[in-house]
């Protein structure tokens, strides 16, 4: 009895404290959103006029189109590059797993700003050491027929790199959650080849991981500012920055718009992951993009 009388108040206190902190955190997270919305609404010209102004700006549509194309390209390239490789490593080369972990963790140690500095230097200035290290590919890629310096193509490659951790992890987790080798052996014994097994057996089973990876890459690329700004390419976040600097009310309206875009992306992740076949991934798969 003595024990219960001691624990009960302590437990209630700690629960109360946690709930209180949670409430304060929610208020803290909602406050800027609410204030931004109110600030946008309180625009002297009226919110409708502001949005009308934004939507009639050709730059808005042009940049959003460029960002959409870039994000789609990065998503496709990222998934096509990583998913078969992760499956291959899982099946044929488990030894290479630490290498994959290492390569997909590097973006944490090399933020976007350093990556863009490095990319500008790799493809911008001739360097003998790099020519040798890249098996002669750098000079090919930085000279005319295939020149990728400061082009959207290089930006797509950079986006694939910065989203590697968010692409590899969910796919690898899904591969671990299913019986990858048993499924593969069954498919092989029924006469299916490697690609057919991958596309018709493995992919449907790791679908939640693939969708989660794809949408995280997409939302990272949509919101990415650093590399685009340092490469001098006019994407949607740059437009946001340039327009917002001149007009605080417009900036608030654009922030609201951008929040709605993020909201749609996250809702799409949640719905597609829940609805998809397999359901291997759970809460842990919904992670964050690297658009800081």
């Amino acid at each position, binding site marked *: 009895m003595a024990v219960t009388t001691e624990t009960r108040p302590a437990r209630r206190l*700690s629960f109360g404290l946690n709930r209180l902190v949670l409430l304060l955190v929610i208020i803290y997270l909602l406050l800027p959103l609410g204030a931004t919305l109110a600030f946008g609404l309180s625009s002297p010209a009226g919110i409708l006029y502001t949005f009308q102004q934004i939507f009639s700006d050709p730059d808005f549509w042009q940049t959003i189109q460029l960002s959409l194309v870039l994000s789609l390209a990065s998503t496709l390239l990222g998934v096509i590059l990583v998913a078969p490789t992760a499956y291959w490593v899982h099946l044929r080369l488990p030894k290479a797993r630490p290498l994959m972990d290492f390569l997909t963790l590097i973006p944490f140690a090399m933020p976007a700003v350093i990556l863009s500095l490095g990319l500008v230097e790799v493809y911008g200035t001739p360097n003998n050491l790099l020519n040798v290290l890249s098996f002669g590919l750098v000079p090919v890629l930085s000279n005319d027929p295939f020149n990728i310096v400061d082009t959207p193509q290089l930006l797509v490659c950079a986006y694939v790199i910065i989203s590697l951790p968010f692409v590899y992890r969910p796919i690898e987790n899904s591969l671990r959650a299913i019986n990858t080798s048993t499924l593969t052996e069954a498919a092989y014994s029924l006469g299916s080849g490697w690609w057919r097994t991958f596309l018709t057996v493995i992919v449907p089973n790791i679908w939640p991981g693939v969708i989660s990876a794809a949408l995280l890459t997409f939302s990272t690329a949509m919101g990415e500012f650093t590399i685009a700004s340092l490469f001098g390419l006019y994407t949607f976040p740059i437009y946001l920055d340039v327009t917002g600097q001149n007009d605080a009310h417009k900036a608030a309206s654009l*922030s609201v718009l951008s929040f709605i875009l993020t909201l749609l992306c996250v809702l799409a992740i949640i719905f597609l992951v829940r609805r998809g076949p397999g359901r291997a991934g759970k809460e842990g798969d919904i992670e964050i993009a690297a658009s800081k």
Partner: protein
Amino acid sequence: MDISGTVDTEVTNTAIEDEEAGAKPRRLFRINWGYMLSSWLGLVPFLLFCLLFELLPAVVVIQGSLTDNNTGDFTLDNYQHLLSQSNNLNAFQISVSISLVTALIGTVVGFMAAYGVYSLRSGWLRNFLVGFSSITANFAGVPLAFAFIATLGATGFITVAIQNWFHVNIYEDLHFSLYGFWGLVIVYVYFQLPLMVLIMLPALNALRPEWREAATNLGASGFIYWRRIALPILLPSLIAAAMLLFANAFGAYATAYALAQGNINIVPILIGYATAGNVQVDTGLGNALAVGMIVVLLAAVSLYVTLVRRASVWTGK
């Protein structure tokens, strides 16, 4: 592909002959070698991509930090410049302190909030809060900076509200600035807190209710349960999460840039100047700054990897 096929059959043929001669170990070695080679070939596209767009940029930054801008000779001058200009050291100090402070606030407050979410009874509210955390953790960069300018800027909604209600101007009377150290901390914490909630929820879900019941049966109070059982189990994930938050804040460029258009003295902004060819920072110095940043982050990431490995002993993954 045909060539490798014939090589493979040849290897098998000789291996069979060898087996007849009684040389078993040699056969195993040879066949595994061919299999290994073709296995690694499947990895080539990915490795090549990583080499071209991930590893070479790192190599060139390190190489650039050790070469002279004009002559191309080996030199340590760039690091000497970095260390001799108080501006650079100051930037490192501010960057590290902002990252430490926001990681600490994020870890402590975020953990309590995550526990609050974990202990919620209703499932839909939990799911709703997880979704809300994903959205706010993704809401970073330029839009976040603008949202805070609209909220706490000089004419922001809350700044004006406080002035109307309490007749206190937080900029003039309290010397607060959104573009200073604490302003940046407030903005960074916005994406750190929900990130922490998202990282900690799976770890909290791994805590089994049986452990708490067993501890209570043996007479442990709530405090003792936390100190002796829950915290030691969660500690590796907590420290790992703190490292991740640190790295997250340390590399943040867009938020700070959009907030003050580059007028905040933190390391990513200085590196951005070097990349965009600003006269204030030369390339060599930019590379040296980048290497300094990589060193700090590598320390954090390697600690993260070690601790995650230790944490996985407990969660049994």
